[in-house]
Each structure stands twice: as structure tokens, then as C-alpha cells.
């Protein structure tokens, strides 16, 4: 069992991803969304959007979908993905993310601690994100739980 506090302050170099319209539509389908603005370009434009908007939790997916050249925090801790649970997730919103945008994300581990004598370990990360115009599209705070 690794010392989780060793990753506090660890930063991930900025990484970018293009928001693919088809991926946003696939997300809407997979979540059973009935709101046409998340599924259909004409409906989105008729509602005043410049393209299909990314729904409120999609930044989390952009993070997962964008390749990183660096070793992940979990890999650095030697944690197997089968032992991970999601503890908490929070989003703060800036400019709307749209299909076609290029989103750049930077992450930092802000806290890490143990409970139940190390049976559960927690790693808290904050990710900030901007679009191709340099506008903030918001941030997210993620707490992962490692089951030992």
C-alpha cells in the first residue's frame, strides 16, 4: 500500500482535446437524454447555440478521453483500477463547452488522506479547463477512493 500523501501537489501538464460532436451525441444517447439540444444540431441552433452543447458532466469525459503523455496518479501509486471507487465529484461552470471546441485541461492533486487505518485511501484532484479562446470553461474537483 503506497503512501498516498506522496502525490499531494503533483501537477499534470496541460493536455488538449477537440470536443467531437459525435461523442457528445453518443453521450446523450447512452444516458437516454430526451432533450434535443444535446442530440440534434438543428435543435441546438434553433435554441440559440452555436453547436451541440456538452452536458454538465462532460468535462469529466473530456479528461478521460484525452490522452496524457504522463504517468497517471493511480499508476504512480501502483493502484489497480479494479480497486477504485468514485467518492465525490464537483463542477464549477464558466463558458459553455460546445462541440468543435478545443478544451485544454490542467490538473493538480490538492489533497490525499487515509481512513479506517489505510483500508480506504482518498486522492482529491482539481482540474481547470479553458477553451480555444482562452476563456475558462470551469473546473472540477474529483475525489477517488482506493480500496485496500
Amino acid at each position: 500500500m503506497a503512501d498516498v500523501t506522496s502525490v499531494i501537489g503533483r501537477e499534470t501538464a496541460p493536455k488538449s482535446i477537440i470536443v467531437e460532436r459525435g461523442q457528445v451525441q453518443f453521450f446523450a444517447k447512452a444516458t437516454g437524454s430526451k432533450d434535443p439540444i444535446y442530440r440534434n444540431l438543428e435543435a441546438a441552433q434553433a435554441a440559440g447555440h452555436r453547436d451541440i452543447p456538452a452536458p454538465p458532466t462532460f468535462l469529466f469525459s473530456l479528461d478521460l478521453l484525452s490522452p496524457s503523455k504522463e504517468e497517471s496518479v493511480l499508476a504512480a501509486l501502483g493502484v489497480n483500477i479494479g480497486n477504485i471507487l468514485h467518492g465525490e465529484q464537483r463542477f464549477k461552470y464558466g463558458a459553455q463547452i460546445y462541440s468543435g471546441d478545443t478544451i485544454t485541461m490542467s490538473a493538480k492533486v490538492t489533497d490525499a488522506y487515509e481512513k479506517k487505518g489505510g483500508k480506504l485511501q482518498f486522492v482529491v484532484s482539481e482540474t481547470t479547463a479553458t477553451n480555444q479562446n482562452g476563456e475558462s470553461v470551469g473546473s472540477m474537483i474529483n475525489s477517488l477512493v482506493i480500496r485496500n
Partner: protein
Amino acid sequence: MSGITFDSISVGDVLPEHICGPITRTTLGLFAGASGDHNPIHIDIDFAKKFGMKDVFAHGMLSMAYLAQLLTNYLPQSQLREYGVRFVAITPVNTRVSCSGKITEKYEVDGEKLIKVEITAEVDGGIATLTGDAIFAVA
């Protein structure tokens, strides 16, 4: 143009309930691809068993997406300022997810009128799986 204004909202108001699912194994396979979360614990029963689970279980972020639909059905996403949850229990496969919300605060920060909504996702049997809150700006 939801027609919902700050003055028309009262603390204690409840959002229209939003029921999703049932979450099938197909749902989990599709959500894995759509969300980019390819953790096999949600899609491969052999892998899940190896890690002490009886079966695959749903991604927490799937229910968080369902709760987001509850929110954007109520007010446009452009008015959403913050949204957070705690994942308090695992969501098993083959359950429905009932999303509910209640207005708990009305306040103003730097001239912006805000409301706070407490939200909960429950699976069949009334077990809470996600609890959290959202903050909307409402003119």
C-alpha cells in the same frame, strides 16, 4: 425561456421527478464508450468478481449525468453555476434511478440572484446512491 423567475421560486419547491433506466448491461457498455470510462469493473463480470464484487455495477458518473438531466429539465444549463455530488452507495445493474431535487436556499452574491437545489438519486428500494447540490443563477 423556462418562465421560472427568482420571485416565482420558493424554498421547499420540488423539481419534477426524473426517472431513468432501467440500467441494463447494454447501458453500461454504451456509457463506457460514450463517457471514456473504460474501467472493466463496470462492463466485465469476470473482472468485477476478481475484485470482490458479485457483479458489475454502474458508473457513478452515469447517475450524475441522470441528475444533470433533472437539473437541465428544470432550468437551462447556461444558468447552472455549480453542481456536485457524493457517491454514497454503488448503483447495481438492472435498477431504475429516481432523481429528485428540492430548493433549499435563495440568496444573492455580487448582485447575482442564486438558488441552491439539494438533489438525490435513488435506486429501486429507495436506497440513496448520490446526494449533492446544484447552484443556479435565476434572474
